[in-house]
């Protein structure tokens, strides 16, 4: 288990799963909001093509607010519609 306060590079390469234990992909980068001093979203690559319409993107931006927990993996809410379109505005 990773401590709550840790180095941002520990996130790189972690697998991202939904609460229904479906693989989404792998963390490639983190988008930081400078003024807000927070992680805005995780940039996820090596996407599961059954979940994400891969033609639309090189990577998927997962907003931090849909993350349930981060440990040995990143666990996020299960939002198949949003994964397909890449639009998380309504969730």
């Amino acid at each position, binding site marked *: 288990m990773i401590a709550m306060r840790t*180095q941002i590079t520990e996130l790189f390469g972690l697998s991202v799963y939904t609460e229904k234990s479906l693989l989404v992909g792998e963390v490639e980068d983190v988008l930081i909001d400078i003024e807000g001093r*927070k992680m805005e979203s995780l940039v996820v690559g090596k996407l599961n093509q059954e979940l994400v319409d891969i033609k639309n993107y090189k990577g998927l931006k997962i907003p931090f607010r849909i993350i349930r927990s981060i440990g040995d993996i990143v666990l996020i809410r299960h939002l198949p519609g949003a994964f397909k379109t890449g639009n998380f505005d309504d969730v």
Partner: protein
Amino acid sequence: MSRVMARSLSRKKIVTNEGKMIGTLKNIVVDFETGQVVDLIVYPDPSFDTSGYRVEGDRLFINFEAVKDIKDYIIVDRYLSRK
């Protein structure tokens, strides 16, 4: 609202708002629970006087609160970067 990719910050130089070079970015401390960005971890330049700064071994910690802007350099407030 300015946003930046974490990987693009790798090895960026940290400079105070009065133009003093502090050192090179090593890593960033974040809180996985809240998503908050807490500290910059910096390798200070050998010539930089680290007195008044938070130092652990060869690394220097700067509260992210001190960050004023990030473009080619990371600009930090000379007062807020101490403590």
